[in-house]
């Protein structure tokens, strides 16, 4: 973990020194930078999640059809995944890769805000740039609050508006966590009987539990972490909005949008999952860029086509030499 944590701690401390010892600004910029670096992973995860969501009705039909034959069900599910070029683990892998990064990011803030002798001693061997020791210890007071400690709700006084800030931060943590979850979770596709399917039901419960849990974290842990949660959630929302997939009208039920039936794109064996699909028409095209987007092959002789985890439609069934993709074969 140190190989991730130490650069993060150094970067955060460096930003602190660059931004005139403003810890809050350093945390926000630090979070933005790390989220940008992990954006390709986030985007891939979200694409995969959306594709899986679209397959839910088909999977439900298979479950109903083969409910007494688990082996056959598994075979048919895998066939379905292959048919639509979906890697069922495609959304998990980016998440697994991101775990240590986000945990390190989270821990970097705690480590950098060291307030006790042992914490500061541990910080001493994490700074990879010697000159940064001149800014230690980092200033952790912001608007009268100690960023390194949990909010003290007992100090709230209406006569001093600054004491209300911890409450505002907790509310913002809960709200942005909820909003990010809503934005990034594809709309639920109900079963034929109109009831939410199992995944959708679980998503709904997650949508309630996660914000409350993060609110509890914000209440229990340092205020600096609340700032990180808010910044991280906000960046996640902005990222998804920039991808054009944030439907705020649905989320906030503007104009009755939430009550309307979910309008998912029709499920098809050829799905556009990237903004710039690559269409190959010439087998000699060896310079085509790698992509996780749609690859439509029209020539079976293309042995150099890049690997892809995307949907692949083959127009030549006799293509036995085409390279395997991560998802489709």
């Amino acid at each position, binding site marked *: 973990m140190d190989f991730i944590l130490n650069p993060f701690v150094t970067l955060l401390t460096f930003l602190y020194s660059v931004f005139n010892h403003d810890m809050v600004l350093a945390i926000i910029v630090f979070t933005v930078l790390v989220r940008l670096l992990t954006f390709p992973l986030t985007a891939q995860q979200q694409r995969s999640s959306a594709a899986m969501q679209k397959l839910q009705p088909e999977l439900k039909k298979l479950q109903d059809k083969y409910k007494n034959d688990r082996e056959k069900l598994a075979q048919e599910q895998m066939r379905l995944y292959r048919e639509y070029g979906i890697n069922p683990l495609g*959304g*998990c892998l980016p*998440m697994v890769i991101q*775990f240590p990064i986000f945990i390190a990011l989270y821990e970097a803030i*705690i480590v950098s805000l060291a307030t006790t002798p042992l914490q500061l001693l541990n910080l001493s*061997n994490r700074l990879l740039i010697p000159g940064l020791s*001149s800014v*230690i210890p980092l200033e952790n007071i912001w608007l009268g609050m100690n960023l390194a400690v949990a909010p003290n709700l007992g100090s709230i006084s209406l006569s001093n508006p600054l004491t209300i800030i911890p409450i505002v931060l907790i509310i913002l943590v809960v709200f942005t966590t909820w909003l990010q979850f809503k934005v990034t979770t594809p709309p639920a596709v109900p079963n034929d009987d109109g009831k939410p399917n199992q995944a959708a039901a679980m998503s709904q419960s997650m949508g309630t539990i996660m914000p409350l849990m993060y609110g509890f974290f914000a209440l229990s842990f340092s205020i600096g972490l609340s700032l990180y949660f808010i910044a991280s959630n906000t960046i996640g929302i902005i990222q998804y909005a920039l991808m054009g997939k944030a439907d705020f009208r649905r989320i906030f039920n503007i104009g009755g949008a939430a009550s309307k039936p979910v309008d998912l794109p029709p499920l098809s064996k050829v799905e556009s999952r990237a903004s710039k699909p690559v269409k190959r028409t010439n087998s000699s095209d060896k310079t085509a860029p790698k992509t996780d987007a749609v690859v439509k092959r029209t020539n079976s002789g293309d042995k150099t086509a890049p690997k892809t985890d995307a949907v692949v439609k083959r127009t030549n069934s006799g293509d036995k030499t085409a390279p395997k993709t991560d998802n489709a074969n």
Partner: protein
Amino acid sequence: MVLLKRLLTYGAIVVVGLMAGACVGLPTESSWGDVSLIGSPAKILFSFSDRIVQIDPADGKPVKLLDSDGKVRVDDSGNPRTWVLLSPTGSTVHYYTRPVQTDDQTLIAGVYEDKLYQVDAAAARIDKTDGIALPGHVIGNPLLTDNLLYVPISEGGLVALNRSDFSQAWRFIGDNAKGIWSQPLLVDGTLYVSAMNHFLFALDAATGTEKWKVDLGGALASTPVYANGALYIGSFGHEVYKVALNGTIAAQYSTSDWVWGAPTVVDNMVYATDLGGNVYALKDSGSSLDLVWTRKVATAAIRMSPFVDGDTMVVGSRDHNVYWISRTTGDAINDSGGKPITRAMNGEVLSNILLIPSTDANADPTIIVSTIDKSELLVAFSLSTGERRWVYSS
């Protein structure tokens, strides 16, 4: 698969929560213990974590509590009671500093939880469980004078309390001096205070009025040392300084890493350690600190002040080792078999070493090394041979 991803998300939340729990708020330990001597005949007073204990320097066993007749006190079960001070009833506190003795019967103990407690020394009991409220954590040793008790606050400056009733006489938080992690030094009516905001302050000890301050380029976590008419102190800015009593920097020497422990000054030699595991011997030539020798002794940080007695220097490190080296050359001191005297410990060695002077019964002085591992909270070694004499564990 959706279910799997959700479970992974749940897992991530749990992991993050556990990590947060481990890292935020009051950690398992916030600091390391303090070892000192008290009373006559001297007993070891050891403050660590949630307790203060008195240890017999002869055998490392807890001192038994005696009543006014000199008989051993017993608990409700008839077992002998030992001198151990725990948290006041109904709360948990952490002692990282040595208590100060206000009279034969009373100790004043500062705790991490923003309080001072008056302790009945004979009974090892806190008299008033409410304690005396402070504006922050106590991780630096308080200093007691005839009239005032100076308490450094980890994030709240320096508080001077009237000794008579512990009311606040004054508080120094000037120029953002907020973080004071070490005991102030009193010399001729002037209080020298090292602060984490990089400044060394000189204050009027009676009023707290600032006389001067000097920026030493890095956090100051140790008490300045007064010797040769000047102050010596190390900083996180990779420097050891000699500061004149008027606040001007008389000399300085650049080290490889943060200097946390206070230098040890013997005659005109200044010995310092750094968090890179290095030890330095510097000659004070008046206007300069000249390097005599330096050695990378340990593979991890040395936080403590170098312990020096005669030609023997002993330092402990975060690498779990205690090293005996020659003060004159910096080379390792060998045992009778020709091997360097290095003692492996179970935990990191962070506290300063305590010397138990030689007695008629034992001419070879004992040194007390403290680790942060509960199986070896205190270990007594022969100063001359490194022989292990006893261990106190929790």
